[in-house]
């Protein structure tokens, strides 16, 4: 085997080895950092053991948001219609968080069945308008889009 070919072979082997190592590390890291997503109904059908991190998504049930005194702890219920889960979160809630709105919480179930959230995200899709629009528009004395007609 000529020196050039030998060098090329070594180079190819090194590259393959490198790619192999990188892929293994990547795959392992992927598995470790995957977070499953469940709605309350899916959770009811396929329970997740306590302690395992996952993301819970649904609507914030109106009337369910309760702050513990003046602390940073909040309890609320996430529902998707048929099923619901109680969530506890310590910290400041995102701006878009409100009752009747969509929410995604990351955390794990506790033994008690309550979901302890370490992160709460509220989603906003530009095609939907939060119902609070009309309320706020009227509050600020602003003219609402549809209710005021010009001739």
């Amino acid at each position, binding site marked *: 085997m000529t020196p050039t070919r030998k*060098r090329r072979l070594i180079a190819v082997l090194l590259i393959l080895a490198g790619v192999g190592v990188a892929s293994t590390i990547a795959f392992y890291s992927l598995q470790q950092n995957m977070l*499953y997503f469940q709605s309350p109904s899916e959770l009811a059908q396929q329970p997740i053991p306590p302690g395992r991190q996952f993301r819970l998504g649904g609507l914030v049930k109106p009337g369910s948001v309760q702050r513990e005194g003046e*602390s940073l702890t909040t309890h609320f219920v996430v529902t998707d219609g048929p099923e619901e889960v109680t969530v506890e979160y310590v910290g400041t809630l995102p701006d878009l968080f409100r009752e009747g709105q969509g929410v995604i919480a990351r955390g794990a179930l506790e033994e008690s069945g309550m979901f302890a959230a370490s992160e709460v995200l509220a989603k906003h899709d*530009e095609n939907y308008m*939060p119902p*609070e629009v009309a309320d*706020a528009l009227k509050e600020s004395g602003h003219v609402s*889009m549809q209710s005021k007609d010009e001739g």
Partner: protein
Amino acid sequence: MIPELGQVALIGALLIALIMGTLPLIGASSGNQRLMKIGQTGAIAQFLLILTSFVILTWAFIVQDFSVEYVARNSNYQLPMQYRFSAVWGSHEGSLLLWELILCMWTFAVALFSKNLPDDFRARTLAVLGWVSAGFLLFVIFTSNPFGRLIPQAADGLDLNPLLQDPGLIIHPPMLYMGYVGFSVSFAFAVAALLGQQVTRDWVRWSRPWTHVAWAFLTLGIALGSWWAYYELGWGGWWFWDPVENASFMPWIVGTALIHSQAVTEKRGTFRNWTLILAITTFSLCLLGTFLVRSGVLTSVHAFASDPTRGVFILTYLAVVVGGSLLLFAIRAPAMVQGSNFAGVSRETLLLINNLLLVVMAAMVLTGTLYPLLLDALDAGKISVGPPYFGTLFALLLVPIAVLLPLGFYSRWQEDSLGRLLRELLVPGIAALIGGLATAFLLPKAGSWGIAGVAGAFWIMTSCLRYYRQRVSAGRGRRPSRGETGMILAHFGVGLFLIGASLTNAVSSEKHLRMVAGDSFELAGYNFVFEGTRGVRGPNYVADEGEFIVYKAGKRVTSLYPQKRRYANGQVMTEAALDPGLTRDLYVGLGEALNDQGTAWAVRLYHKPFIRFIWIGALLMMAGGFLAATDRRYRRSVTARSENPVADANLAEATA
């Protein structure tokens, strides 16, 4: 009536783009000068039409014409004037029109500044850009028309998403698109070269300044996005590995590999196929990114409203553009160059390793971004991939890159000796050691990654300075060219970025707590005193404004006024208050009122050292890119005498 004119202009531009895409190609292969010239006239005409269309949409926003549905959805009577401009690209349809405008600008620039290119090559390049534009215009006209009417007219608009009512968002999308779309030029150059079988050294030389400028803009765009997210979203983070962010980062990574590969092809004549593939891949990733964030395939907190119809369209567009060019590559790519061997230790080898590492990095980000989709398609559940995956792998890959970077500077082409290299790097090595030890002692919280990062940064930055000094005092009567200075500047920026990125997360302090007026909290040596809140009014919002006075060692450092705003459309926004500094940022955000009287508040306090290094480093990278693009040798004409006969011989032999 006028908005309809905007629509007509779009259709007109489409027709021109189609003409531009076909006739010059015929002209190029038949040598017909008149047909080839159509490329340039087409570029000018297209640009004028799209500009008209864009101006009409902007005008509709300025005069607040709510009979145009897009205007009604993204603006209202109280929107301040400067945001009426940026509202034009506030959501999907308008941002696509901006994309198209910038594409036409680049095409126009190519038509203007390509006097030194051979006619047939220039014609083909413009033709390719014409096709890219035509596809995009089809997409806009049929699925994302911003000029649709709302009948009956709305009394007032919905309002621009308050998140977007911000100076950062006035320039972030345009700069990002300048980069994103700019890579279409190096793409067009690559395809044109393949079509005409002109993969020569000249081709790369023409390509380089365009690539540099596009890359610099993309760097700027990404940095702006990161900085904007940091101060606007109010949570202290600067990068989230969100699919939308990844969509812009992947082209940047591959674009960086492209720049390095072009250097090798220009100087040595090798790596041509790498350069071609990288040029195609970079732009493909730009299109892929556009697809990912607008089609609904991936859900992201930041994504545009999803619409599968649009997704089908973009995917088809992607398939045609990318699939077509890759097929062209498979068929027409030049053969491997013989006799261009380089030794195991040489600049070529180092840059080859660089290419590989960067490609692996991009592949890793792509995998993480698409993995949820793959699992969903296989019905294996809905998942999301957490930031630690990206962060850890990115850091791991950055290690070999950072270590080898200075070797790249000093190494010689074709053959070098490891011993010589290591001797050159003795001083940077010592600097790295000092940096690492200093970090370990002065910033114990930094952790091993922090120490490694600072050591790596010192390693890189010292090499840059030393190399620059050597080149300046080279005594050959020649100062370093702009290309070289730009390169050194950009790599120095990498070092600064590395310091910021490695340290800031590890060394930052953060506290969420309840505060009432009079409370104070000590964080990282700074004393934050809460003086209470009061109500304030803005042009289109009302807000609770808190007052915080910050002391250090008894002396007053600054006052911060974070706000909790409520906009006309009901949306609530946090406006964090920042005290920026070179070595540290102080940051306060108001959470929510904890009682009905509004006397107790949930508050977030942050101390973020070294975070500005991230963006300053990125700005230096950008500056280096722009500087390198202005190098005099790019403006030499085609017939100038070559300065590298070896490279020319290589290429001549291969393309024969």
